[in-house]
C-alpha cells in the first residue's frame, strides 16, 4: 500500500518540524533572557579568567621578556607582578610578569586554559622567559573535584574550542553535542551549573567551628571593610577589584601605592580576619570542600596538572613548578597525606623532568602573613613571597634565563 503524498501531509510534517524548532528556539531564548536578567552568565562564572584570556594577544605583543605565574587564588593573592617587575628591574633584569592565578578552578579547567595560552603564544611566535606554575595540592583532590562536577561541562564549554569539541563528538556524541549546545546556544551556562548555582542554599550545611565569634572583632572588621572599600574607591576610581586588570598585570594593588595610614588600617583588618573563630571555620571549610588535611588525590587531576606543565614547557624557556606557603599553624597534614603528596610530586617530577620547588614551609612566611588558612595577605604575605621569588629566582637562575 502506498501512502498518499499529498501536500497536506507535507504541510503537517512541516508544521510539526516548525513547531519543534520554533518552540525550542523560543525556550532557549527565554533561558538566555533569564540568565542575562539574573546575572548568571559565563562572566559570572569565569569573569577574571575570560578577561585574562582576552588579554593574551596584548601580552604576547609586549616588547619585554615575559614571565607568567599560573595557579589558583593563592597565586592571585600571593604574587604581585608589578612589585616583582620593579624588584627585578632594580637588579638590572627587566621583565613583564603576569598573574594568572584564578580562584574556583581545578587542574582540569586550568589545563584547558593553559592550552589557550599555549596556542596564543605559538600563534604569535612568542615565548615566556619564565613560567611559574603553582601545584596546589588541595586543588587536585577527589573532594575538590566532586564539589565542581556540575560546573565541569560549563568550564570546558566556555574555555574549550570547537576543535577540541569535535573529537569528543566522535568519541561520545551525547557529550559532544552537549558541549556545543552549552557553548553556542546556552551562552556557556549548563543547566547543571545553573541549578547548582540557584540551589546552593539547599546544600547540606558544612561543619562549623565551635569556637565563639569575637563580636568586637567582627564589628571592627565590618567597619574596617567599609573604610577600606571607601579608600579603594578614592585611590582607584576607575577600577573594579574583581576584574583581571591589565594595568596591574592581573595582580592586585601594591603596598607602595597605598598611604601609610591605609596600610595600618589593613594590618588591623588582617588581624580581625585572623581570629580563632574565623580561622578554625575556614579550616573546616577547606576540609569540607577540598580535603586539605588528608589530600586524597584524584589521579585525573594530577594527570591534568602534568599536562599544564607540558603546555608551558612548550612555550617557555624555563618552567618552575612551585608549592606556595601554607599556614602551618592551622593546616597540618597527616603522615598519610604527606606520603600521598610525596607520591604525587614524584609523579609530576618524573613526567615533566622538573624539580618541584617546595615553599610550603618557608621561614620567611609566618602565619601572621595569611588572611585565612590558605591565602597570603596582599600587603604582608604577598609582598614577602613575591620578594622571596625575586631573591630565589633572580640570582643566578633568572639572570641565566634572561641573558
Amino acid at each position, binding site marked *: 500500500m502506498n501512502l498518499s503524498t499529498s501536500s497536506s501531509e*507535507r504541510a*503537517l510534517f512541516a508544521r510539526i518540524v516548525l513547531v519543534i524548532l520554533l518552540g525550542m528556539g523560543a525556550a532557549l531564548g527565554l533561558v538566555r533572557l533569564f540568565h542575562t536578567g539574573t546575572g548568571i552568565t559565563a562572566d559570572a562564572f569565569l569573569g577574571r579568567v575570560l578577561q585574562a584570556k582576552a588579554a593574551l594577544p596584548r601580552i604576547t605583543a609586549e616588547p619585554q621578556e615575559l614571565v607568567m605565574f599560573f595557579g589558583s587564588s593563592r597565586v592571585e593573592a600571593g604574587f604581585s607582578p608589578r612589585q616583582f617587575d620593579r624588584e627585578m628591574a632594580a637588579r638590572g633584569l627587566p621583565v613583564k610578569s603576569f598573574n594568572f592565578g584564578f580562584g574556583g578552578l581545578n587542574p582540569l579547567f586550568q589545563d584547558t586554559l593553559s592550552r589557550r595560552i599555549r596556542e596564543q603564544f605559538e600563534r604569535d611566535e612568542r615565548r615566556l622567559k619564565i613560567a611559574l606554575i603553582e601545584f596546589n595540592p588541595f586543588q587536585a583532590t577527589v573532594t575538590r573535584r566532586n564539589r565542581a562536577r556540575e560546573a565541569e561541562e560549563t568550564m570546558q564549554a566556555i574555555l574549550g574550542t570547537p576543535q577540541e569539541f569535535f573529537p569528543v563528538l566522535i568519541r561520545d556524541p551525547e557529550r559532544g553535542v552537549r558541549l556545543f549546545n552549552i557553548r553556542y546556544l546556552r551562552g556557556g551556562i549548563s543547566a547543571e551549573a545553573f541549578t547548582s548555582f540557584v540551589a546552593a542554599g539547599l546544600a547540606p550545611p558544612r561543619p562549623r567551628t565551635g569556637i565563639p565569634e569575637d563580636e568586637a572583632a567582627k564589628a571592627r572588621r565590618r567597619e574596617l571593610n567599609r573604610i577600606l572599600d571607601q579608600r579603594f574607591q578614592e585611590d582607584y576610581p576607575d577600577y573594579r577589584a574583581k576584574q583581571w586588570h591589565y594595568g596591574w598585570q592581573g595582580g592586585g594593588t601594591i603596598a607602595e601605592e597605598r598611604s601609610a595610614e591605609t596600610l595600618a588600617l589593613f594590618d588591623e583588618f588582617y588581624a580581625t580576619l585572623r581570629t580563632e573563630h574565623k580561622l578554625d571555620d575556614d579550616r573546616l571549610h577547606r576540609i569540607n570542600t577540598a580535603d586539605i588535611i588528608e589530600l586524597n588525590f584524584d589521579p585525573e587531576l594530577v594527570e591534568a596538572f602534568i599536562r599544564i606543565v607540558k603546555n608551558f614547557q612548550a612555550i617557555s624557556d624555563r618552567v618552575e613548578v612551585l608549592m606556595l606557603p601554607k599556614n602551618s599553624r592551622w593546616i597540618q597534614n597527616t603522615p598519610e597525606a604527606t606520603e600521598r603528596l610525596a607520591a604525587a610530586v614524584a609523579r609530576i617530577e618524573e613526567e615533566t623532568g622538573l624539580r618541584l620547588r617546595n615553599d610550603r614551609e618557608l621561614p620567611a612566611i609566618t602565619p601572621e602573613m595569611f588572611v585565612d588558612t590558605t591565602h597570603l595577605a596582599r600587603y604582608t604575605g604577598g609582598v614577602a613571597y613575591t620578594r622571596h621569588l625575586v631573591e630565589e629566582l633572580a640570582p643566578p637562575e633568572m639572570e641565566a634565563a634572561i641573558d
Partner: protein
Amino acid sequence: MIFNTPLFFAFFIVFLLFYGFVFLQRRPRVYLILVASLVFYGAWNYAFIPLLVGSAVVDYFLAQGIAAAPAGRRRKILLGISIAVNLGILAVFKYADFAIGSVADLLRLLGYEPSLSSLELILPVGISFYTFQSMSYTIDVYRGDMQPRRGLVEFTAALAFFPQLVAGPILRARQILPQFHRLPLPTWTNAKYGFLLITVGLMKKTVADLLAGPVATAFDSSGPVSLMESWTGVLAFAGQIYGDFSGYSDMAIGLALLLGFQIPLNFRLPYFALSPVDFWRRWHISLSSWLRDYLYIPLGGNRGGNRYRNIFITMLLGGLWHGAAWTFVAWGAFHGALIGATHKLSELRLFAPFVQSRSLWMRLFKWAFTFYLILIGWVLFRAASLEGAWQMLVTLHSIGAALPSPSQGAALVFGLVAAALLAMHLMDYGVLEYGERLAQKPWGFWPALVTVQALCLMIGEPSSEFIYFQF
C-alpha cells in the same frame, strides 16, 4: 541516546525531515524507522544491535512456523524455543552473574570456598523490554490471538521502534504491528497532544533528576541519617522513580503520536491508588498487564484455588524482572504479599464496610495507608542490599531513637520533595482531564509549552540516564 538531550533533538529533527519529506512511501518509511531505531540504539552500544535484530529474526520465523504447524507438539516445541531463546538472552545477560553470586554465597554459607567467577557482561539497554515484547508475539500467534505478519523488516522495525525501544511501554505485537502495516499519518490534534505529553514528560524527568540529591542523602550516606532526611529520601525516591519512568513513557507516547502511532498509557496517577491492587492497575500498566496475560493467567489465574500462590509467583518474578538482585526479589515478594492480602481481606465480611466505604475519610485513610506501603516497598527497591533496606526500614520507624538531628533546611527540602511529588501527579491529572481541551486553546497552549520547556532547559539538562534503562 536519551530523549531529553540535544543529541536526540537533532536526531529527531533529521529523522522527521526524512520521514516527512524524503521517504514518502510506506515501505521506505518502515525501512527508515528501522535504520533510525538501530542508530538510536547503537548510540548507546552498537555491539548489541545483532542481539536485538537476532531476537526479532528468531521470533519472526518461529511465529511463522507456529502458525504453519498443525496443532499439537510441534507448535509447542516452536513456542518453547521462542520462550527459551528470549529468557535465555535475559538469563545470560541479566541474571547469570546474580545466579553465580547467589550460588557462591550459598556455598560459602555451607562452609565451602567456591571459586566461581562472574561473567561481568554488560547489560544491553532495554533488553527486558524488547524480549518481553518479542515473546508476546509468538505467544499470541500460538494462542491464535493474532495471525503472524509477513515482513521481517516490518516486524523488526516494530520491535525496535525507537520511541519505546529502551524503556517501554511494553507493546503487544497486536497493538503495534497493525499500525506498522498501515503506517498511520499523524493528525494535528494528535500531534498537539504529543507535544503536550513530551513537555510533561520532560518536566517530570527534570523533577526526577532534581530529586536524586535527597535520595542519595538518605540511601548512599556513609553514616546515620536523621529520621526526617530518611523519610525525605524515601519520598524523593518515590518521586524520582515515578518522574523518571512515567516521564520517559510520556515522551515515548508523545513522540510516537508525532509520527501517527498510538501507544497506550503506561501510568495513571499511581500514587493516588487506594489499595495495592489499585496501585498495580495504575503503575507500569504495560508490564502489569503483560504479567497478568502471559504469566498469571497461564499459571492458572484465579482458578483452581491457587490464586494467592499465582499472585505471589507473578509479583515475585515481576520484581526479578526489574533487576538481578535480592532487593528486587524482596520488593516483588512484598507486593505479591500485599496484593494477596488485599484480595483476602476484601473477601472477609468483617472488612466489607471498610472496603466498600466511599466516605472521604475512609478513602483518605486507604490512600494514606496504601501510599505508606508503597513507600516501604520503594525502600526495598532502592536499597543497595537487603541489609541496607532493613537498616533504612528500622530508621524510618525509629521515632525517639538516638538518630542524628536533621540538617538545617531539612524541613524545607522535605516540603519541596512532597510538593514536587504532588505537582507531578497534579500535572498528570491535568493532562488526563484537560489535556485535549487545553490543546484547543492555542494562545494558552503554546506559551505554556514553551515556558515549561524553557524551565526544563534551564534547570534540567541531563547527565543522568533514565533509571529504567538499567532494567
